[in-house]
């Protein structure tokens, strides 16, 4: 596996997005799902929220070019649409730090090599405010050591063993890994009564 698949750490400018329970319909409204490719999804990230709120962080000049998104609780809940992380990725997001994540969204991010790390409510709020004060300063998301560094402060930010191993080891592009099981896949199927016939 090529080393450029490894996501040991991601460094870049931050963008804070306050609020809890931001769902994937909000990240990318369903009408933009009428497409047979993911191309162009980036320009529709948070489209309705941005139109309704000119001050939306994704509209702010200071955050253009940012790559580390900092969010609240239950970010990405709702629909399984991979269009949501695809839109964020194509907008420029490379890593997300938050209070907690919707589970399918989290998994979809791993499949795209986007680490999502969980930090405490207090640390998330601190980081959001710190980035707002110094948007040009880089945030470093260290997946391997499970910490986020901003200026001289280090906060703890965790990601469970499985996804962390995938991201750090560069095995998040899972098709190749799953194919390695070879005939064991069919052997497992043959043990199932509904596959072989009851």
């Amino acid at each position, binding site marked *: 596996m090529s080393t450029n698949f490894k996501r040991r750490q991601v460094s870049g400018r931050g963008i804070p997005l306050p609020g809890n329970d931001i769902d994937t319909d909000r990240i990318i409204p369903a009408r933009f799902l009428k497409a047979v490719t993911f191309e162009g999804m980036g320009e529709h990230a948070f489209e309705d929220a941005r139109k309704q709120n000119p001050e939306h962080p994704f509209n702010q000049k200071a955050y253009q070019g940012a790559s580390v998104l900092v969010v609240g609780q239950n970010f990405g809940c*709702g629909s399984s649409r991979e269009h949501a992380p695809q839109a964020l990725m194509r907008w420029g997001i490379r890593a997300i730090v938050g209070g907690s994540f919707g589970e399918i969204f989290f998994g979809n991010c791993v499949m795209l090599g986007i680490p999502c790390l969980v930090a405490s409510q207090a640390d998330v709020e601190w980081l959001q405010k710190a980035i707002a004060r110094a948007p040009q300063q880089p945030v470093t998301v260290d997946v391997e050591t499970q910490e986020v560094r901003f200026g001289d402060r280090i906060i703890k930010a965790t990601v469970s063993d499985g996804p962390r191993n*995938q991201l750090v080891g560069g095995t998040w592009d899972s098709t190749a890994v799953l194919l390695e099981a070879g005939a064991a896949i069919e052997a497992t199927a043959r043990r199932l009564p*509904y596959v072989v016939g*009851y």
Partner: protein
Amino acid sequence: MARTLLDKVWEAHTVRTLPSGQTQLLIGLHLIHEVTTPQAFQMLKELKLTVRMPERTFGTLDHIIPTADQTRPYADPLAEDMAAHMYKNTKEFGLPLFDMASGRQGIVHVIGPELGLSQPGMTIACGDSHTSTHGAVGAIAFGIGTTQVRDVLATQCLAMAKPKLRQVRVDGALAKGVYAKDVILAIIGTLGVKGGVGYAYEYAGPIIERMTMEERLTVCNMSIEGGARCGYVNPDATTIEYLRGRPYTPAGAAFDRAAAWWKTMATEPGAKFDDVARLDGAAIEPVVTWGINPGMSVGVSQRIPSPDSQPEPERPTFHEALAHMGFEAGQPIKGAKIDVAFVGSCTNGRLSDLRIAAEVAKKGKVAKHVRALIVPGSQQVARAAEAEGLHEIFQAAGFQWRKAGCSMCLGMNDDKLQGREMSASSSNRNFIGRQGSPTGRTLLMSPAMVAAAAITGVVTDVREILR
């Protein structure tokens, strides 16, 4: 040691433990639809891979399907393009597609159980978060993203971590006018929209056990709205009788052998759970959401809560919800004016849902200012409803009788809210913009409550109409 259904299904489908520590899990049934698969097929082609077990994948068309005029090409060129890709991809990879001509088309989570494709003891995946629905038959079923759809097509497997298990017990008996939808909204209201993250939910207790399969499908459908990626009910006599005689279940002696195996997959007495939650079912009244996620709900006799009554971190979302919905804290939900009524979706688009909505529709006419749609969950549901004359009851009362599809649940076809319209909806999500208008508003409730709101024009306690 006594084992749970989750333990047994997980073990039976484990191919190996991956270097990452996750399980390589075999997927017994893969369901696909037109919205989350074109990119997966494209990736498959780029990788020069085939579908590993084409006999284990079934497709349908649901999200973008017009429910009024279904003449091809569809009026919306983007919808037509997505349908055309679905035809092309399923043909190229040799996968069955339940299209309009099949007579079996419908919402993927309605047709899976209805055709007997979804069976106890299976692992089921689909590029749609409401795949949790299929857990009602005793399967472990979860939604996946498009890149994972590619994985299932290419390898029939997923890399997954086994979730923790919470048993959610609903005790007592339901009052008249209270339905499965009210039960799951009450569960989400109690445990929260993120309470289930990291968990699978096993629904149990006397109320769940007495539920029909269609009611169980409604409950499991909204597991994801409580944060749980999958939810299931243990297979029992109700499950077996529901599956008997379905097109894709075995027949004759093979059915009995299947049923015997299904029963062995149920959670054993004395099995341990990571957590147990209990609800008093007798205390549940018809539930209505007032906010912008499915956990923001109240009983129909209650008032909209004040943000000040909430823990501090939740308050901004409450303020946002009140502002979006145009509600005041302390206002009763009953009497809130609606503009649109929608009965349908993978949550509540089955025959029993249409029957109860029709029962209410008989009591009046759709209010003059209300646009009311009945959208059956599948072609089979539509035919069965028409055979009973339900469509005539609806039409006589002023409801539009539409063709099967996802429709106004997410507004990917022409069925959308306009502007700030307020919708009484039997669907599953009240997220901002969900029903097709960025400023549209959604009140989730049972199909009976939707029908009641349609004829009175305001949120109404259906028990007063059914009395």
